[in-house]
């Protein structure tokens, strides 16, 4: 047989079959979704990261205690990155008689590389975007102006220099405000060098801030890493503030969830369509086998046609994905006024092709059943149905998780999601089996149509199982994308409520606490948390010098060797939950310490490890009693290390407070500083606003992508409903020939679908709730309580879908003359 010619000749007939069309639509859609996400979500994330980079001050930063080599800047310029150098050091400032210790920050031309420097001119109401201060000029923040009792336009002394305060510094986009303990002065870097303050004994911090295209940043990072010497620290956006990383990770997880769901559903729809195709092709295959065709030829004929037809469908999907991605990108660019990096097709294409090949490999197995069609089938149609060897199932079972991981999905997320869908199928299978056994008993005592409907289900367990499982998976996915994920998104956004702390106050002395809290109440502060804070160092870990303790993450060396902020508390701090171990018992005081779990993991210590700390002049020996999961989004004051109060007795310390002050009451801070001149208030509202923006933007992207999953779920439903429809139509025609009425036929179909729909609805709502709970707990790390709406919605959708299926089947059967269906 001239196989290529036969393959080509049958193409037109193949494409006319409804299951072939369904397969092609699902394939095109899957590829469109993949393309959109692989190119678009990456670009969207780049775009969002660019926005997030404003908080970090750049896409990348290198920090050091000594001046950074000029080659670092040249290397950045060669790779098309923009750069700016900053230098920070504490210094005493003088204005007439007044003096104040300030955090002086000097910046080079080109600063900032991300975000905007906002300043307010003397006498101006509104602030504006500012350039770095010129020679002889400086910007002072509100706290510094207050502390020195001056206004913009005044002159101050910095070392040997006299500078003019040209404007008030409103916002400095390098993320360091959060951590600055003293008021800030911004000056030009040449002035800072000329002030004569960088001699021996000074402790300057140098930072090189860099920004540019993602690929250039990656290339620069790879180039730079080997050149770094101890004391030079590289930090990417993802490594920046914990709360930023948490927002980024969650957003990314939501997007991954939507895409994985879409992909798995499209794969299922394709699988069902090809299973139907294999059923249809079985008779032709048996005939060809009778005529002497080999097994391989019998398989290659439909396989060749499927692959040939898949090519234009894949291209159409790719083009659709490109258009969709462009559209999404335009909207995002317009909304956030940011320039997105161009799509790097050459870089994305190989990955996409591998994913498409993987997807096809996952869904082709039903066709391999044709290898087992015996020639005997040509004589006895029912002699052998094309079964599927179980070994082929390993392809989707292995392929889909690999595809998920290749797309950069979080491992836990991929596992939870696929396990969720697989258990949907398994649980549904079990339930359907139980229900079928029950129905078999029930059928015996029933008469007429009811018995007929029940028997038709009971005698086709595999078909019912397949349709029930597909219906369940589609319903689970539908619930996940329409209810659970939006609920989780809503919950995420609610993690930053209106009264989230937007001010931190440092340097509170213990004896000021009562008066301070009274004053806070007077100025209208809410959500007040006051915690003790001390600065300590790790001296020993399990009785060996800490410096000899190996850390898995090189970035942790600074925590192991440098100063650590620590606190103590009798109760588990708000916004924290216990991950391992038990919280201490106030009745049995001891020397326990609680560590933030990620910090403990990176430091390489666990429950029961002994840590020696030096706090001030005191040596304290503590044992790791528990690990905490910390909600960094809560904007409370959080500590990596919290001691048991008994371990911190007589330790010299201060207090730190966080609270929310509505913007219209911001003047209260002025009176607070007047009452307690030693306090250092820090405005974290701006950062909070940016995080809120980021959460909103990622949520919007995830919601748009969840719509794709909804469409894919509809495709699966369609495939599940269409499965074995020809057989049902034929039986319906026979019953019509025997004189059954339209109403009776509709009742018969409804009864059949109702049983399937109800089983699917019960299993799907349970599984969607469970998957949601698991996702919330394992991936998104917050509590999730599914509402009653879940089973109600599942039942409504299942009923609607099944009623539609029954109506469509009855309608087709009653509209087509029975003779036509019986001939088919």
């Amino acid at each position, binding site marked *: 047989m001239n196989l290529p010619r036969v393959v080509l000749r049958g193409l037109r007939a193949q494409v006319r079959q409804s299951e072939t069309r369904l397969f092609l639509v699902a394939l095109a859609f899957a590829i469109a979704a993949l393309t959109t996400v692989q190119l678009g979500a990456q670009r969207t994330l780049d775009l969002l990261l660019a926005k997030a980079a404003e908080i970090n001050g750049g896409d990348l930063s290198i920090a050091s205690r000594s001046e950074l080599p000029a080659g670092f800047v040249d290397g950045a310029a060669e790779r098309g990155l923009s750069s700016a150098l900053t230098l920070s050091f504490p210094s005493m400032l003088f204005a007439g008689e007044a003096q104040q210790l300030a955090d002086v920050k000097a910046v080079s031309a080109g600063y900032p590389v991300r975000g905007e420097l906002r300043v307010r001119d003397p006498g101006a109401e509104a602030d504006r975007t500012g350039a770095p201060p010129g020679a002889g000029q400086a910007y002072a923040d509100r706290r510094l102006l207050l502390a020195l009792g001056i206004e913009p336009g005044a002159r101050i002394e910095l070392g040997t220099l006299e500078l003019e305060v040209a404007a008030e510094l409103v916002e400095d986009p390098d993320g360091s405000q959060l951590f600055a303990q003293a008021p800030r002065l911004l000056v030009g870097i040449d002035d800072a060098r000329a002030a004569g303050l960088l001699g021996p004994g000074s402790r300057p911090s140098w930072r090189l801030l860099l920004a540019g295209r993602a690929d250039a940043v990656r290339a620069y990072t790879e180039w730079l890493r080997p050149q770094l010497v101890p004391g030079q620290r590289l930090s990417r956006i993802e490594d920046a503030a914990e709360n930023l990383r948490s927002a980024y990770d969650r957003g990314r997880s939501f997007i991954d969830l939507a895409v994985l769901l879409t992909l798995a559903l499209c794969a299922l729809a394709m699988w069902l369509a090809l299973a139907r195709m294999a059923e249809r092709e079985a008779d032709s295959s048996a005939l060809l086998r009778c005529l002497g065709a080999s097994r391989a030829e019998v398989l290659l004929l439909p396989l060749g046609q499927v692959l040939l037809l898949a090519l234009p469908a894949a291209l159409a999907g790719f083009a659709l994905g490109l258009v969709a991605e462009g559209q999404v990108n335009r909207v995002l660019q317009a909304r956030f006024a940011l320039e997105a990096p161009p799509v790097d097709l050459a870089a994305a294409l190989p990955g996409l092709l591998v994913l498409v090949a993987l997807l096809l490999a996952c869904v082709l197995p039903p066709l391999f059943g044709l290898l087992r069609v015996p020639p005997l089938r040509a004589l006895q149609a*029912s002699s052998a149905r094309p079964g599927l060897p179980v070994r082929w199932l390993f392809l989707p079972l292995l392929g889909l998780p690999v595809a998920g991981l290749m797309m950069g999905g979080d491992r836990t997320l991929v596992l939870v999601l696929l396990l969720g869908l697989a258990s949907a199928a398994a649980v549904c299978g079990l339930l359907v089996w139980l229900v079928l056994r029950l129905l078999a008993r029930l059928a015996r005592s029933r008469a007429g149509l009811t018995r*007929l409907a029940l028997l038709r289900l009971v005698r086709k367990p595999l078909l019912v199982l397949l349709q029930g499982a597909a219906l369940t998976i589609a319903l689970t996915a539908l619930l996940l994308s329409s209810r659970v994920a939006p609920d989780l998104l809503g919950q995420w956004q609610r993690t930053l409520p209106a009264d989230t702390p937007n001010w931190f106050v440092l340097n509170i002395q213990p004896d000021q606490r009562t008066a301070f809290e009274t004053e806070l109440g007077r100025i209208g502060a809410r959500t007040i948390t006051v915690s003790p804070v001390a600065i300590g160092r790790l001296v020993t870990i399990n009785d060996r010098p800490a410096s000899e303790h190996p850390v898995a993450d090189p970035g942790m060396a600074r925590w192991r060797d440098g100063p650590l902020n620590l606190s103590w508390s009798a109760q588990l701090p708000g916004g924290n939950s216990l991950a391992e171990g038990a919280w201490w018992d106030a009745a049995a005081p001891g020397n326990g310490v609680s560590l933030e779990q990620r910090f403990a993991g990176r430091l390489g210590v666990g429950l029961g490890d002994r840590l020696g700390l030096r706090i001030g002049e005191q040596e304290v020996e503590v044992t790791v009693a528990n690990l905490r999961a910390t909600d960094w989004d809560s904007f409370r004051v959080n500590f990596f290390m919290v001691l048991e109060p008994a371990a911190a007795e007589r330790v010299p310390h201060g207090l730190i407070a966080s609270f929310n002050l509505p913007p219209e009451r911001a003047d209260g801070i002025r009176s607070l500083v007047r009452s307690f001149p030693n306090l250092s208030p820090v405005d974290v509202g701006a950062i909070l606003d940016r995080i809120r923006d980021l959460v909103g933007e990622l949520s919007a992207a995830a919601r748009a992508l969840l719509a794709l999953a909804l469409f894919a779920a509809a495709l699966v439903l369609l495939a599940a409903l269409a499965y074995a429809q020809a057989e049902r139509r034929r039986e319906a025609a026979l019953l*019509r020939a025997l*004189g059954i009425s339209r109403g009776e036929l509709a009742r018969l179909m409804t009864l059949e679908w109702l049983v399937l729909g109800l089983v699917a609805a019960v299993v799907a709502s349970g599984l969607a709730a469970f998957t949601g709970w698991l996702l919330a707990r394992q991936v998104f790390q917050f509590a999730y309580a599914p509402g009653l709406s879940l089973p109600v919605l599942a039942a409504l959708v299942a009923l609607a879908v099944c009623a539609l299926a029954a109506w469509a089947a009855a309608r087709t059967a009653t509209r087509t003359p029975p*003779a036509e269906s019986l001939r088919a």
Partner: protein
Amino acid sequence: MGGGNPILVAQGLGKHVDGPDGGLTILDGVDLTLNAGASLAIVGRSGSGKTTLLSLLAGLDVPSAGRVLLDGNDLSALGEEARAALRRRRVGFVFQSFQLIPTLDAYENVLIAAELAGIADARERSRQVLETVGLGRRLHHLPRQLSGGEQQRVALARAFVHAPPLLFADEPTGNLDGESARIVTDLLFDLRRRAGTTLVLVTHDLDLAARCEQRLALVEGRVAAAGTPA
């Protein structure tokens, strides 16, 4: 074709379909009258329009021209729903490819027809008729567990369970070997005789046709000959 009490009348019956090469006439100007209790064999070569004629006479399809009167009811004036109701009470079928419901066993296949016809003792009657066709010991076998001859006997039991006044049989022995065909034919005529059923039989088996009282020969969709076999 005879006077007396006609149970089935066809007047100017025609069927045209649109094909890839234009319109196609399958049946053209067929007239026939069949009295209650009579038997008619429709004969002709493959593609002569025999099965199409049977489908139109039974109301399983609608004609492009002409009309059919079944038991005095003009099928053209009835909708599919009304035709189905008429078939339920008055008509039985035997198909060449048996057309049993694969998910029901032999007994259940017969029972569903009995229940549809509203027979009071449907269960008992179904059992009896299956015993009559010699399948009393195969009641709970699914169609795929029965031979072709046995499946056709189940179909006969189903067709006669409600003793219909009119039975349509489309090549009832076409898929059977000689011995099975003989058994099925004998059963068909025996059951018909006992129930007094009018029979319309499509066949190209001339021996089978000879057992009918009347014969109608079709050539390319037109009546070539009609009358009583010699």
